[in-house]
C-alpha cells in the first residue's frame, strides 16, 4: 500500500499539539508521526507519548566494559606478567582504584556517545524530509499516512494553521516497521545486528577498521607478524655490573677506613683520674663492659665463653701497654668482635671507663 508523507510547519506549540491530537483521532498511530523543532520541546508538552531511549543502557554497558578493561590493564596483566617492584606487584590496591575509576568513566561517556549515535541512527547522510526553517524556531509535524487518509490529514494540518505544507508520495514501501520511516527516509532501516548489516557500508568500514587495528595491535608485539622495530640498542655499549677494567685511583686519593689517631695528639681531651671519675668509671664498667670482660677485667665475663678468641684480659700487660687514646678509639669504634660503644658511653664516660681500666692494672 502506498504511503504518503506530510510535513507541516507551525509557529506555536498549542496548534501543533492540537494537530497531533486530531491526527491521532484520525487513526494515525503515534509512531507514524514525529515532531521536529529547533528547540527541545518535551514530548509531553505536545501531548505525545514519552520517548524511551536506550542511551542510559549504553552508558551502563560502557561502564561495565570500562571496569573490565581497567581490571585487565592492572591486575589481569600483572597476573600474566608478575612484575614486582620492591616486593610489591605493580598494582597495589589504592592506585589501582584510581585507574579503575578513570577507565570506568571513560567507558561510560564514550558509550553514552556511541549510544546517542546509534539510537538516533547517526550519521545520516542521505536526503531526509526536512525543512531548514525548523532551526529558525518553527515546529515541524511529519506524518506518514496511508494514501486514503492523506487528504484528511492534510486538511487537519491546514485547519490548525500550518504555514507550509508538503506532501510526498512514497512509492516503495521499503520499511518493515512503520515508525522507522520517519527516521531514515529513503534509506533502508536495519538494526545493528540485523541480517543486512553488510549492506550498511559505513558501519561495515568502521567495524572492519576496528578489527584490523586490533589484530595488527595484538599480533605485532607477540611476533605473529614479525616486524623489526628499530630500537637502536645494537649501537649501545653493554657493560655488566662492576665489570672491569676499573679506573685507577687518582694520585691524591687516600683510603679511609674510619678514624685513626694523629701521631702525638690525644683522641679527645683526657679527663684526670679523680676519685669521682673512678667511681663513675666503675659503675659504667659494671653496666657496659662486665658481661664480656668480667668484674675484675680478666676477660672471663659471663658471655666470654661464646667468643673465639676470648675477650681481652684488660689487666694484662699487652692491654695496659695501649695508650689512653688507643683505648678511647677501641671503645668508640669497637675492635674485633667488640662492638662500638659510642652510643652507650659519651666522651666523658669513655674517659671515666679508661681511668677505671687503668686502675685494674695488676
Amino acid at each position, binding site marked *: 500500500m502506498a504511503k504518503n508523507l506530510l510535513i507541516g510547519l507551525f509557529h506555536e506549540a498549542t496548534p501543533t499539539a492540537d494537530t497531533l491530537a486530531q491526527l491521532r483521532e484520525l487513526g494515525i498511530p503515534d509512531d507514524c508521526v514525529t515532531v521536529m523543532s*529547533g528547540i527541545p520541546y518535551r514530548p509531553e508538552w505536545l501531548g505525545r507519548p514519552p520517548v524511551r531511549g536506550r542511551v542510559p543502557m549504553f552508558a551502563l554497558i560502557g561502564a561495565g566494559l570500562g571496569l573490565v578493561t581497567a581490571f585487565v590493564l592492572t591486575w589481569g596483566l600483572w597476573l600474566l606478567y608478575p612484575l614486582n617492584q620492591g616486593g*610489591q606487584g605493580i598494582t597495589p590496591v589504592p592506585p589501582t582504584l584510581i585507574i579503575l575509576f578513570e577507565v570506568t568513566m571513560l567507558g561510560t561517556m564514550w558509550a553514552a556517545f556511541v549510544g546517542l549515535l546509534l539510537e538516533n541512527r547517526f550519521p545520516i547522510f542521505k536526503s531526509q524530509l526536512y525543512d531548514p526553517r525548523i532551526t529558525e524556531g518553527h515546529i515541524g509535524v511529519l506524518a506518514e499516512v496511508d494514501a486514503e487518509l492523506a487528504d484528511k490529514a492534510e486538511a487537519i494540518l491546514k485547519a490548525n494553521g500550518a504555514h507550509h505544507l508538503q506532501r510526498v508520495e512514497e512509492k516503495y514501501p521499503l520499511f518493515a516497521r512503520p515508525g522507522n520511516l520517519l527516521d531514515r527516509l529513503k534509506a533502508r532501516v536495519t538494526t545493528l545486528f540485523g541480517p543486512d548489516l553488510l549492506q550498511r557500508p559505513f558501519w561495515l568500514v568502521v567495524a572492519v577498521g576496528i578489527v584490523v587495528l586490533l589484530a595488527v595491535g595484538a599480533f605485532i608485539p607477540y611476533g605473529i607478524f614479525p616486524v623489526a622495530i628499530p630500537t637502536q640498542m645494537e649501537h649501545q655499549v653493554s657493560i655488566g655490573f662492576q665489570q672491569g677494567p676499573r679506573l685507577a685511583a687518582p694520585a691524591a686519593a687516600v683510603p679511609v677506613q674510619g678514624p685513626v689517631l694523629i701521631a702525638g695528639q690525644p683522641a679527645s681531651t683526657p679527663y684526670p683520674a679523680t676519685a669521682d671519675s673512678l667511681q663513675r668509671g666503675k659503675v659504667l664498667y659494671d653496666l657496659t663492659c662486665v658481661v664480656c670482660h668480667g668484674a675484675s677485667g680478666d676477660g672471663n665475663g659471663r658471655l666470654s665463653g661464646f667468643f673465639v678468641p676470648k675477650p681481652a684480659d684488660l689487666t694484662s700487660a699487652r692491654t695496659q701497654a695501649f695508650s689512653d687514646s688507643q683505648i678511647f678509639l677501641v671503645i668508640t669504634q669497637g675492635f674485633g668482635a667488640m662492638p662500638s660503644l659510642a652510643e652507650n658511653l659519651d666522651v666523658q664516660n669513655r674517659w671515666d671507663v679508661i681511668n677505671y681500666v687503668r686502675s685494674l692494672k695488676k
Partner: protein
Amino acid sequence: MSERKTDQAFWRRPAIADETEAHQIEDVRQQHLLLDPRYPLDSDRDVLDPMYRSSKRYWFFFALFAGLVLMMFTTWTVQMWLGLGITGLKRPTMWALYIVNFVYFIGIGHAGTFISAALRVLKVEWRRPISRAAELVTVFGLMTAALFPLIHLGRTWKFYWLIPYPNERQLWPSFHSPLLWDLTAITTYLSCSILFAYISLLPDLAMARDHTSGWRHILYSVLALGWRGTEREWSNHETALNIFSYAIIPVMFSVHTIVSWDFAMAIQPGWHSTIFGPYFVVGALFSGAGAVIIALTIIRKAMRLQYFLRTEHLEGMAKLMLLLSFAWDYFYFNDVLVPWYGQAPVEKSLFALFASGRVAPLFYLMIFANAIVPVTLVFKRVRTSIVGLFIVSLFIQIGMYIERFLIVPVGLGQNEIPFAWGVYVPYLPESLISIGAFGLVIFLFFLISRFFPLIPSWEVYEGQVLQGLRRIGRAILPTRAEPD
C-alpha cells in the same frame, strides 16, 4: 474552529497598553537575555555572521598569535635537537616552568566543565550563552597542557613508553606512579570534554548547515550527522548530555587531584601534604573561572555578541569567582598553617624564603592578586564593569601562575639536604615556549571562532521559551518554568 487558548511563539512580544508597564518590561528585557527573545533567525545571524566576516584587526591578531605558536614549536624543535641542557633545568629543580605550565593550563581547563556541567545539573540559567565558550576553554587548555609533559620529556619520541600496551619489550608501566594516573585521567578528561562539547554543538551545527552554502554547508552537513531535531533526537540528546554532566564532574575533580598527587606523593617538604588535592582543585576552578571571563569579554567585543553575552552573565561568573577566591584563601591558609605548626626546619626555611627571601616579591604579588584584588568583586560596580572584570581576571591569572611557580621550582629548590639547595631561573627556551603556549590557546580560539558557533543558540532559545514575567505589586520580575 472553536474558541481555544493558545500560546504565542516565544519570540512574539505582546503589545502592552500601559506605558509604565511597557517601560518596566523593557528594562527587565534589557537586563535579561532570556526575557529578550528575538526571531531566532536574527539571533542565528548574529552568531554566524562573525564567522565569515573577518576584519583586518582579526587577521593582524591571527598573524600575531600564529607567530607565537610558530615560535613555540620552533623552540621545541631546537630543544629536541640540542637536548634539555639548553633549559634552566638542573639539580635539584628538575621540574620547573614546563610543569608550572602543565598545572596552570590543566587548571584553566577546569572552569569550562564546571560551568557547563555543574551549572547545567544545578539548572543555573545564566550558564546558557556562555557554556560553549567555557567548554572550548577547557578543550584548548587541556590540549595545551597535554603538550607540556611531552616537551618536558626531552626525548619526546619515547612518550609511548608511558602507555600500557602489550609490546615486544614485555615492559609494563607501573601503576604506582602518579604520572600514569595523570595519563589515564587526562585521556579520559580530554576525550570526554571534546565529546561533551561536540554533543552540545550538534543542534548548532544543524543550524549552521541550514543557513550556509558552499564548503561550509558540506562541512556542517557532515558534522551535524543528519540532525533534524525530531523528538527522539532531542530526547536522546538530553539524556546523553545529562549523563555526561554527571559523569564528567567527578572526572574533573579527579584530574586536578591527580595533578596535585604528582607533587604530594613525593617526600618533598612543602609538597607532601594531604590537603594538596582539594587545594589544587579549588585553585584550578579559580584560575579557570578567570580565564573564562577573559575569553568571554574578548569574544563579546571582537565578535559583537553583546546581545548574547550581557552583564548578567559576567556578573554571575564574577560571583562564582569571588566565592572561589575565598575558597582558595581558605585552602592556602590550611596548606601553610599545618606545616608552620609542625615547625619542621626545611619548611620553616621555605616560609622564611616566602616571607622575606628572594621570592618574597612574587609571594606578596600572589597574595595581592589572588586574595585581595578579587575582594573588589563584592562591589556591584566592579562586577558589572567589563573592564574591571577583565583586569581582576588578569590579576588572578598572574597570581595563580605565580602560585604554581612557587610550588614547583621554588619548593623543589629547598629540599631536605641544605647542601643541595638550588635557585632556578627560567632560560630563554623555556620562556619562549611558555609565552607560545598562551599564544597557542588564543590562536586555537581565533581559529575555532571562524568555524563553529561560539554561542549555543539552542540552549538560549530553550531558556527563552521557559522564561516569563510575573507582576508582584509594582514590580515586574522574571520567572522560570521548570521543565522536569
